[in-house]
């Protein structure tokens, strides 16, 4: 089986799933495979452990895609006939860039970037990852520089955060309250910095401390100048995610929690009418060859190995069988709940798969044997 028919003609591939299921490696192997098939590919990852950087032998991935040296794969039977680009997302950097792009002039840009609230709080908070990830995706898509983009999504506890990011931003920006707050000399922002007559805001002052509040109102006022740009961007991002040339791959392992998360996420995709491309199950213990009962294994091997070692082998064999049975049941449940009859199964490959050899092995399972 191969992932190829699932992603044929797609320009944007989003790999989603819970943390710790091999999503980053899968994304990188997918991108490498496409680059080996002549495409110009960029893989975008958001990974604090720098897994992708390790995989691709890059010490630092900047906030712009960098070309991966095809020589890295040469000794591994992978010939990059296209181009493989990789980047690690820096949310703070991406947000700064976005502000700079959307600001109508330098003054407005600096007002936000130099605002103490923006500086102190935007960098400290990881919560902007979801939005900045797709903002970056959108920017790369618009640049037209790549045939295919592969996005490794943030390790979000709740996949919804990622899907909702454009909507949340838009609804916030279009909220009546914010407009009241932001606009005109009678707007609440004006009142806060001005006479402070509003009861709400005099109380706010008391709760937050006046310095914070003044900074906040300046922050939101400055942001107000960027409103149209933000709204347009959010709409563009939403359209990109729903585009027929975009596909969502759900990556999971057969463990209980990632399976539940995958089922949940698939339902959310369907609800949001977003294009689901297929399911990838990593770290599967294959059930083939594990039919014999452990007792039979002891009997069979005692002659050759002695009773002691045969019993040890049988005990480990029993562990492997239990794992395989668990995985078979998990995959059946995934098939049923997600409605993907042919999920792509990648076996437990022994330890972590984080180097070029590992990528090549995952790649073989994703694209099928070479040839």
């Amino acid at each position, binding site marked *: 089986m191969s992932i190829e028919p699932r992603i044929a003609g797609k320009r944007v591939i989003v790999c989603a799933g*819970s*943390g*710790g*299921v091999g999503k980053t490696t899968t994304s990188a192997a997918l991108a490498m495979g496409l680059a080996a098939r002549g495409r110009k590919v960029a893989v975008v990852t958001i990974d*604090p*452990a*720098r897994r992708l950087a390790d995989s691709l032998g890059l010490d630092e991935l900047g906030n712009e895609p960098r070309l991966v040296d095809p020589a890295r794969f040469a000794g591994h039977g992978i010939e990059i006939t296209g181009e493989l680009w990789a980047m690690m997302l820096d949310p703070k950097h991406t947000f700064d860039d976005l502000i700079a792009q959307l600001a109508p002039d330098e003054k407005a840009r600096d007002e936000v970037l130099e605002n103490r*609230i*923006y500086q*102190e*709080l935007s960098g*400290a*908070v*990881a*919560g902007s990852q979801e939005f900045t990830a797709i903002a970056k995706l959108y920017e790369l898509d618009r640049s037209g520089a790549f045939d295919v983009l592969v996005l490794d999504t943030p*390790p979000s*506890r709740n996949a919804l955060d990622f899907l909702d990011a454009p909507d949340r931003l838009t609804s916030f920006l279009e*909220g*009546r*309250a*914010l407009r*009241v*707050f932001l606009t005109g000399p009678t707007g609440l922002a004006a009142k806060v910095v001005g006479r402070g007559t509003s009861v*709400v805001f005099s*109380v*706010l002052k*008391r*709760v*937050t*401390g*006046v*310095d*914070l509040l003044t*900074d*906040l109102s300046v922050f*939101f006022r400055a942001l107000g100048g960027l409103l149209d740009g933000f709204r347009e961007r959010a709409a563009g991002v939403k359209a990109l995610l729903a585009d027929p040339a975009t596909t969502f791959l759900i990556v999971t392992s057969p*463990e*209980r*929690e*990632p399976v539940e998360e995958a089922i949940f996420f698939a339902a959310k995709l369907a609800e949001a009418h977003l294009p689901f491309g297929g399911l990838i199950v990593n770290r599967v213990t294959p059930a*083939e*060859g*594990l039919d014999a009962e452990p007792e039979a294994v002891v009997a069979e*091997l005692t002659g*050759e*190995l002695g009773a002691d*070692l045969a019993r*040890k*082998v049988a*005990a*480990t*064999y029993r*562990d*492997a*069988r239990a*794992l395989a049975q668990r995985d078979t049941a998990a995959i059946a449940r995934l098939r049923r709940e997600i409605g993907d009859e042919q999920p792509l199964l990648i076996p*437990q490959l*022994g*330890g*972590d798969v984080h180097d070029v050899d590992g990528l090549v092995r995952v790649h073989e399972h994703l694209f099928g044997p070479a040839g």
Partner: protein
Amino acid sequence: MLDHRLLFVTGKGGVGKSSVAAALGALAAERGKRAVVAEVHRRTDVEHVVTAAGADHVSIDPQDAMEEYLVDQLPRALAELLSSSRAFAYLAAATPGMRELLTVGKVWELAQDQRRTPGAEPYDLVVVDAPATGHGVAMLAAPKTFADAAMAGPIARQGRIIHEMLADPARTAIVAVTTPEEMPVNETLALRDGLEQANGQHLALVVVNGLRRKRLTAEEAGALESHREHPAVTAALGLHVLALEQRAQLRRLRRHIGAPTTTVPYIAGGADIAAIARRLDGALA
């Protein structure tokens, strides 16, 4: 470990963080402590296990925490006015870091002798099932970040009080959960650095979850090589390799982490919170 007032349990996604937090809460309850497990990401599947063990379970919602805070800080009429003010709700929701601050503020409140919530009993121990590494560090740093940003006023004052408690190793302990695999170990090492840089905090314990049994000695594995054609031998050698790789990662973690570690065996079929609690019981004794 269980004599702290606050335990933050964090780690990479998928390593069993929630199960370890639930097990610690259950263990504290068994030892006669009034314990509560507080989770911050809308997961309730460990709730019944925690409550069955005699501990409480709460799911912290930043919006509720905000309303609670307002009611406590302000005259009732004003608090209601703010709570129902959409402008205020939007402002709070849009302020970067506000969610983290409200969440950690609620955690702090749970750990006070004098609970803000009228009639609420104090807890001996609050176990926080904290967000994954990056978000977790951001949450722990939020009070200080806000205190520095606000400088004056009640938020700054409270931010400093909360930060003081979080940074006090006698009252607050941070537990990292990991699996003995390369990337989770890397992330645990990065977590240690992040905590020290952002907050001057140290890891009190690292729980290494999912350690597979190593049943074969090197000689036995060697003797099996010539019998690889047998499917049971192949399967046994496959798991043996996994067990060896895990031990190499465990050694690497122990060499570099500079904090106590304890292991929890792999359990096929998912988290068995009671089994994890038994294991930690021995380790923390």
